[in-house]
């Protein structure tokens, strides 16, 4: 979820040129221009015999003259055409042949594919240049022979990449769906596979260009490439080599040319790879939004004083200033279990991770106050106190342990490194915690690897590991989301036991209202990076929520013991960068008023004692308001069940408009 919040909304990759790519393309363009015009301009000079041979560098002949007295600079420039043509020829043969071969093997069906891939593996293990040398030596050496030889020798690389990428794409759902629809293999390849693998292949093409440049120059240098009277850079290099100790100048021209062209190819390849990588996307620079400075004074001084964890006006932002968490204030009392609910992108995990100083890289957190116990998190808190005073349980127990290390070492690591506890003592305590977490065979588990445990056992071990240092605060981020429902119930009980036994306060993040209301004392509801309501679990359980979003969320949750149809919320949450000026929920809200679009509502105590950030229900003076909510939400439920899903509420139109704009 954390990552999802940072990802740009539209995953469409766009080519964003890097400086390297621009430089590479510029050099390549210059070389192409040269290849086009050089033979016309310097052709005669390069071929003219009768000059003084073996001349060193001079103002007349920058790179001297060759054994036949011809100007090396002119010859180098003229040779650009031959060299580049040969490189492009070899690359084209490799790309067309290789991609064709790879695609053919992929289309031919599972058996041919298996054999074909093994064959390609064998072919790829032969050095391309060696193969080309043999081909060139057996056939009569010459430009065409070496181009074909190098082209064929590079084919397997393309073929393998094509089959691998195709296999990768073919495993995706949309390809299997197309198969089920009866789309024939060739069409599958053309419409589904090729467009999705074109980018890496393009990168390989530019790499292949560089490789064939080196290989072709090498062949010519060895004398089995281009034959007299034609010449390319490799040939010029070989000519210059004969007298290199007396006259090094003639070698410089072709060397520089080969390096430049190779560099251009490499830069283009690297640049393409970087520009096409989906990780590079996003990060739109945005102007300063109207800053809603939080006069949110939501934090209660008396509650904060004895609290085990406090966040006051917490803001988590992207480097461009977009606030992913926008002014959240919360405090957790010792021994209290506080739940945070919200949908993906609501900022609940980011809020929790700020309390553990574990925000992913480009994000930064700012807060008026941020502490766990007496440990101030706004500065640079000591790592060992962070490690011992805060315990974390992650969503996915299969990725939170290191798969190649035994559990014992991983469980005792924090104690030994940060707690100053000896090996034996750490071991004893770890086993004890595993026992408390109802992990079966705790002694034996210490010697096992994480994959030997079932998901439920692993999550228990995770909790044991988090509780080992007797932390003041345990942050559980969707601890049961990846678990089966029967295991979930046990893991939740385990959290409660830990809370009761050691008095550890727990911050439980979940998207599941039922989970939160069955475990927590108090629940915070988040929407679009803001706290919208704070209520007791009892109130949540009784569906006695005040904020329209909390009510909509409750109405959207299907219950296993009720027949009420879940009602969807029209529209979708705003992107953090496009959060509306007033209440973030206003465009989707059934009770919206003009003020909601202009002014950000503050958390206020409602009639039932909960605190809600809403202009409409937050007015205790207006007795009619909560009643209107009462009537509003169930009405929405009925309407959705009667009419085909979709536009039902009058506000839907506005929400859809907002959605259109968001796109």
């Amino acid at each position, binding site marked *: 979820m954390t990552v999802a919040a940072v990802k740009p909304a539209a995953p469409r990759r766009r080519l964003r040129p890097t400086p390297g790519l621009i430089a590479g393309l510029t050099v390549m363009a210059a070389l192409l221009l040269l290849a086009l015009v050089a033979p016309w301009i310097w052709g005669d000079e390069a071929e003219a015999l009768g000059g003084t041979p073996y001349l060193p560098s001079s103002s007349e002949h920058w790179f001297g003259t060759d054994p036949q007295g011809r100007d090396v600079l002119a010859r180098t420039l003229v040779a650009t055409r031959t060299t580049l043509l040969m490189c492009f020829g070899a690359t084209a043969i490799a790309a067309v042949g290789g991609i064709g071969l790879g695609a053919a093997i992929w289309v031919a069906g599972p058996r041919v594919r298996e054999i074909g891939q093994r064959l390609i593996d064998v072919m790829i293990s032969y050095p391309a240049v060696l193969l080309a040398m043999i081909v060139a030596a057996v056939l009569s050496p010459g430009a065409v022979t070496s181009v074909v030889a190098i082209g064929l020798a590079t084919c397997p690389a393309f073929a393998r990449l094509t089959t691998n990428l195709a296999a990768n794409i073919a495993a995706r759902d949309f390809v299997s769906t197309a198969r089920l629809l009866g789309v024939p293999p060739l069409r599958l390849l053309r419409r589904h596979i090729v467009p999705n693998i074109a980018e890496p292949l393009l990168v390989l093409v530019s790499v292949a260009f560089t490789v064939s440049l080196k290989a072709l120059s090498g062949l010519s240098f060895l004398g089995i490439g281009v034959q007299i009277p034609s010449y390319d850079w490799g040939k010029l290099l070989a000519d210059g080599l004969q007298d290199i100790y007396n006259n090094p100048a003639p070698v410089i021209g072709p060397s520089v040319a080969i390096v430049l062209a190779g560099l251009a190819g490499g830069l283009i390849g690297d640049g393409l790879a970087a520009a096409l990588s989906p990780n590079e996307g996003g990060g739109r620079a945005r102007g300063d939004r109207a800053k809603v400075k939080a006069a949110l004074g939501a934090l209660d001084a008396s509650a904060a004083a004895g609290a085990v964890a406090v966040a006051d006006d917490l803001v988590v932002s992207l480097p461009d200033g977009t606030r992913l968490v926008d002014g959240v204030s919360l405090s957790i009392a010792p021994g209290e279990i506080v739940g945070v609910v919200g949908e993906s992108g609501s900022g609940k995990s980011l809020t929790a991770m700020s309390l553990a100083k574990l925000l992913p890289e480009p994000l930064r957190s700012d807060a008026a106050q941020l502490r766990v116990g007496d440990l101030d998190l706004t500065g640079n808190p000591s790592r060992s106190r962070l490690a011992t005073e805060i315990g974390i349980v992650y969503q996915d127990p299969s990725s939170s342990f290191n798969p190649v290390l035994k559990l014992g070492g991983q469980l005792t690591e924090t104690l030994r490194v940060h707690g100053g506890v000896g090996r034996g003592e750490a071991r004893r305590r770890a086993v004890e915690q595993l026992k408390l977490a109802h992990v079966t065979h705790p002694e034996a588990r210490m010697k096992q690897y994480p994959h030997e445990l079932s998901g439920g056992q692993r999550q228990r071990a995770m909790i044991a590991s988090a509780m080992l240092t007797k932390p003041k605060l345990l942050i559980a981020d969707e601890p049961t989301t990846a678990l089966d429902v029967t295991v979930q119930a046990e893991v939740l009980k385990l959290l409660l036991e830990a809370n009761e036994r050691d008095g550890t306060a727990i911050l439980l993040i979940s998207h599941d209202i039922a989970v939160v209301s069955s475990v927590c004392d108090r629940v915070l509801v988040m929407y679009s990076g803001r706290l919208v309501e704070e209520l007791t679990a009892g109130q949540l359980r009784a569906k006695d929520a005040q904020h329209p979003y909390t009510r909509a969320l409750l109405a959207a*949750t299907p219950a296993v013991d009720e027949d009420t149809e879940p009602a969807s919320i029209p529209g979708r949450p705003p992107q953090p960068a496009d959060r509306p000026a007033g209440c973030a929920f206003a465009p989707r809200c059934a009770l919206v008023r003009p003020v909601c679009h202009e002014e950000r509502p503050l958390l206020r105590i409602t009639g039932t004692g909960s605190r809600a950030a809403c202009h409409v229900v937050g007015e205790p003076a207006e007795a009619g308001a909560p009643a209107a909510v009462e009537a509003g939400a169930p009405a929405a439920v009925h309407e959705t069940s009667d009419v085909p899903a979709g536009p039902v509420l009058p506000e839907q139109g506005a929400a859809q408009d907002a959605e259109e704009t968001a796109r």
Partner: protein
Amino acid sequence: MTTRVLELDGVDVSFGFGSRRKHVLHDVGLTLDEGRTLGLVGESGSGKSTLAKVVVGLVRPAAGRILIDGEDMAGAGRERIARLRRRIQLIPQDPYASLNPRMTVGDALAEAIDPLRGRAEAHRDTIAALLAKVSMDADAADRYPHAFSGGQRQRIAIARALAVGPEVIVADEVTSALDCSVQAEVLGVLRDLRASMRLTMLFISHDLAVVRHVSDEVAVMSGGRIVEHEQRDRIFASPQHDYTKLLLASVPDGKPLRERRGTAVSK
């Protein structure tokens, strides 16, 4: 009289060889009548997804019969399977992986209508009608999947499955990747389609609450077997099998798991 659209009889599936052979489905029998939705619940590893793959023909059972409208699929040759396959359509779990990012929604639907030559232009009206069925505007056809939210993508995936005019739709965990407000949106579309089209559906989910809201009858799987198959109301009111009881008891219903100390919201 109702028609029996899908019938599974004694289906056995195992993967691997020798000592590493793993039995995934044991003697599974299921029937599905036209216009009914069967909810299939079970925990991870119980064989739900394998059963879905068997039904759509992606996995061939070692033994047993799969009858679609009385035609046996297990014994069918490659071509017959390809033909039968189109009569059963799968809605995959992940709406972000199930649509080709390089194809417009219109092209994706056109491909479902005519897998050999489908072009969006040729089927404009049909595509608009399909999109209307899942409450989406016709202009969605010109956009690429990235322009849509998870719930909208899942609706497109449903429209694509409907495009074939299948006898049975297999929905494999179609809402488990979605947020609950979005899940409600997708469930609403499925609910309307069941009412308006007499959709026959095998709805696979680990979420009992979701299954309750979609299904006419419910089958519970455990360890590769179907342990209970009953009408929806009966299975939720009086589960017979121990495993079904455990499953129902484990669903968090919001009731506190322990006695609560008197904590109130700070005022």
